């Protein structure tokens, strides 16, 4: 059954964008990823159509395992490590969901999709925070998305985090003591992820941090639904509308990055030879995406951010965080466009950095045509939503293009422009050695602990029969003593 209201818009994006990205993979000749990608799309559609918690969980798991296969690729050791970490993280999120579901069913006796009972909320909040890559649980996303094939990343970016947001919109109203914790976490994520993004040189890693940041906006919107002063439906609509617009322009930006990477032969933004006006259509589409994510007036990003601003009026902290994130986003995308199109790269360094495949010459192949077509398509839809936001099902009409709304959106962008003039040198400085990603502290502690535990575990199993029997007898006596104590 197709859901109503704004969820219908989410469904349309999932089905339409997902299908076209799978078609793109087929056109590019990637049969294996296309099959896994089709399953991935099916998982996302299953999740959005789910009428009960069990189906939603199945949707989560289908997404997790197909993404595992997509990330694992055919690649070497590094891909495998990244894919394993992705899988474990998301199975972790799913079992928290499972525990929340057990609590919910034990208290209400029903599996229907509705706002969960208070006892189940904290578990589900944790599951959703993992799923939506809220800082500090975001490492799985920034590690896995940039490591796949450049055409697989847009597909991955459409579903996993967004299904987490949809789940939150349907099940979560978490504000203990009237304090919108979830919204604050979303706001903080939006800002912190932008700060991280500003430090990135790798094209897709930068965009991955912006996914984290933008999903923070959505979580902020949905978190505000729990506050009494905010109308529930308006907050959810704002969050999900931002999901719709962001999914489209992020896929557009990732495809632009894929084209840029193909030209440059590597992913280092500071080492990219500026394309300038050699690809005017690509430049226009990139500008559409960059303006949309920055929230410039008459773009889709502006419309959804306008709604978010409306619902965050009651909570000045969240509102301030989101505005600050807007400034950073604008700055980051001025850098993005500048480095891809207008950078003057030092020839010696540029040559040194260029290690990947040589840029494609000659007439465009089917793959290239398909990529261009997808870029144009997503850009057109983004533009259309920007001019007519009311055409998305469930979105209230009017008010987006008014003068005060436009000026309100331009103010943070003005700050971004000033910051750009001040910080340009620092932001675009070339760096010579690509840094190896370090292991996060938690993972390294766990691995070290695991290595230490191997020895006692092994020695416990290699014990002689006498000691084992002694242990059994000791265990028996302990159990008997315990029972005697109890009874």
């Amino acid at each position, binding site marked *: 059954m197709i859901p109503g209201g704004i969820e219908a818009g989410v469904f349309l994006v999932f089905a339409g964008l997902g299908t076209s990205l799978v078609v793109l993979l087929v056109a590019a000749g990637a049969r294996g990823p296309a099959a896994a990608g089709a399953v991935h799309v099916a998982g996302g559609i299953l999740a959005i159509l789910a009428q009960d918690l*069990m189906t939603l*969980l*199945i949707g989560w*798991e289908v997404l997790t*395992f197909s993404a*595992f296969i997509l990330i*694992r690729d*055919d690649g070497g050791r590094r891909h*495998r490590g990244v*894919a*394993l970490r992705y*899988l*474990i993280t998301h*199975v*972790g999120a*799913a*079992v*928290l969901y*499972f*525990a929340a579901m*057990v*609590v919910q*069913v*034990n208290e209400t006796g029903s599996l229907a999709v509705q706002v969960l009972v208070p006892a189940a909320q904290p578990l589900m909040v944790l599951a959703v925070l993992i799923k939506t890559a809220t800082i500090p649980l975001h490492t799985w996303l920034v590690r896995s998305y940039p490591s796949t094939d450049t055409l697989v990343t847009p597909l991955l970016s459409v579903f996993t985090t967004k299904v987490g947001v949809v789940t939150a919109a349907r099940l979560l109203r978490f504000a203990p003591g009237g304090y919108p914790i979830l919204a604050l976490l979303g706001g903080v994520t939006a800002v912190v992820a932008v700060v991280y993004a500003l430090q990135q040189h790798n094209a897709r890693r930068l965009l991955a941090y912006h996914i984290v940041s933008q999903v923070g906006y959505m979580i902020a919107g949905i978190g505000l639904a729990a506050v009494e002063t905010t109308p529930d439906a308006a907050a959810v609509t704002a969050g999900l509308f931002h999901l719709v617009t962001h999914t489209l322009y992020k896929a557009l930006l990732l495809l632009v990055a894929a084209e840029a990477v193909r030209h440059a032969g590597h992913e280092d933004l500071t080492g990219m030879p500026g394309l300038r006006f050699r690809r005017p259509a690509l430049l226009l589409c990139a500008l559409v995406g960059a303006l949309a994510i920055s929230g410039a007036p008459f773009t889709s990003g502006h419309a959804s951010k306008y709604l978010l601003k409306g619902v965050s009026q009651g909570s000045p902290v969240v509102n301030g965080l989101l505005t600050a994130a807007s400034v950073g986003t604008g700055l980051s995308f001025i850098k993005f466009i500048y480095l891809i199109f207008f950078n003057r790269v030092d020839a010696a360094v540029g040559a040194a950095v260029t290690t990947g495949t040589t840029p494609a010459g000659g007439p465009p192949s089917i793959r290239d045509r398909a990529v261009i077509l997808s870029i144009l398509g997503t850009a057109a839809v983004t533009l259309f939503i920007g001019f007519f936001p009311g055409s998305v099902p469930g979105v209230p009409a009017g008010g987006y293009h008014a003068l005060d709304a436009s000026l309100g959106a331009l103010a943070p962008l003005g700050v971004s422009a000033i910051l750009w003039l001040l910080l340009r040198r620092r932001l675009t400085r070339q760096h010579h050695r690509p840094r190896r990603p370090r292991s996060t502290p938690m993972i390294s502690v766990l691995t070290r602990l*695991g290595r230490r*535990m*191997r020895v006692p*575990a*092994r020695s*416990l*199993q290699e*014990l002689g*029969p006498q000691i*084992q*029997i002694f*242990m*059994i*007898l000791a*265990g*028996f006596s302990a*159990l*008997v003593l*315990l*029972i*005697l104590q*109890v*009874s």
Partner: protein
Amino acid sequence: MSHLPVLVVVVPIAGGFLISLVDLILPSVKKAAVLAVALSHGCVLVLAAFAALSYPPLMYVPGSWLPPVGIALRVDSFSALFLILLAVGHCGSVLFRLGSEGSRQWEGKTAALTALLFGALAGVVVTADLFNLFVFVELATVCTVGLISRKQRPDSSVAGFVYLMIAAVSGALLLFAVLLIYSATGTVSMSLVAERIHEVPAALHGVILGALVVSFGIKFGMVPFHVWQPRAYHAAGTTTAGVLSGFGMKVYLYALFRLLWGPLQAPLLLPEIFPVLQVLAMVTILVGHLMALLENNLIRMLALSSVAHGGYILLGLAAAGDVGADAAVAAALFHIAAHALMKSSLLWSAHHAISLARSSRIVDHHGVAREMPVVMAAFMVAALAIAGIPPTGGFFSKWLVALAQGSLLPVLVIALGTVISMGYYARYFVVVMAKRPPEPLRQVRSRSILSTAVVVVFAGVVAAAGVAQGPLQSLFVVMAGSLTGSGGLP
């Protein structure tokens, strides 16, 4: 038809001796004899199970000597499930061996011992007499020791010895408990004990219970009594390990259920035991999964996962002491049935991988999936089910066990167990799906359609059980009712 309860024991034991005899006289028809014994035992088991699913339980009193003088056999719908599992296990393992093993492995006593083992296990299921239970458990132990140490390797005799010693402790504790019951009540018939057990002082009752829990805890691998299991399964090889872990372990759990609800009346008289069992179950789940995560050897990893899954079943048992006993017992039964199929499918498909790579170390299995995609697909489906990924049957059994829990902590333990087990199975996936094997693998010698079909069917049934979970669950509730509803034995 009325002799079915005794036939389920007599057929395989007679068959076991027949197989030995055929081996001496006419070795060329040995395979046919083994298959005939397995199939006839399977038929008898299934007939007995279906007869028992109707309400009044089948009672069988050999020679018309009524208890307390004579012994009795009894089949009700609770035991029906285990009879069906034994039928599946016996026929499945023999079909798998027919398909997977060359003629050299058919020499020796493995086939006869397997038939005897299934006879003894069926005896444990149908007996209504405590001393008889002890005899069948000991017979099963002897067969198991033979199966563990049958391979002519140094570590297999060590493993056999360790199992023998530890099983001796288990047997001694069982005998101790039976003697205490006999001295306190004056009978070893389960139904008569159930009537008189309330006269027994609580402390003595506690000691009996403790002895029985430890005795069967050793057998099914409850932490900290599980230490024999990885070593024994590794030494026994995957085929036998599939029998022991998939089906043997379940019968010991059956005995624990039967004794707690039947003769000992634990839910009524000693409900304090259930929280203790719950803690033990949680420790078992976590320790089993964590040790499996640290393991480098595929068989030992699967053995330790089996330890953990004993914990899930025990968790269902422990929840049944609380409210809603039938639902909790039914959840445990669901997990018993699902785990029997999943674990035997895993171990038997691992058999192919191990014989291809000539090693059971996980790192040696690079690229195995590319050589035998069907078998490894079955392995992966079974692994997803055993880790509890929806919509497989393994997910629903865990889900029901989790729903039966009264508090949040066991649910979180179950959830954590899923993450850890997904960790070690996924690690194996990425190894077997890796691109190029570092060295050429051995040509597969004897992998027939038959042995592949067994693992594929088992994995497929578990995966499909998720779709049919509604009717299955109501069937299991009926079976659980015959254990708890009547207060055990009539």
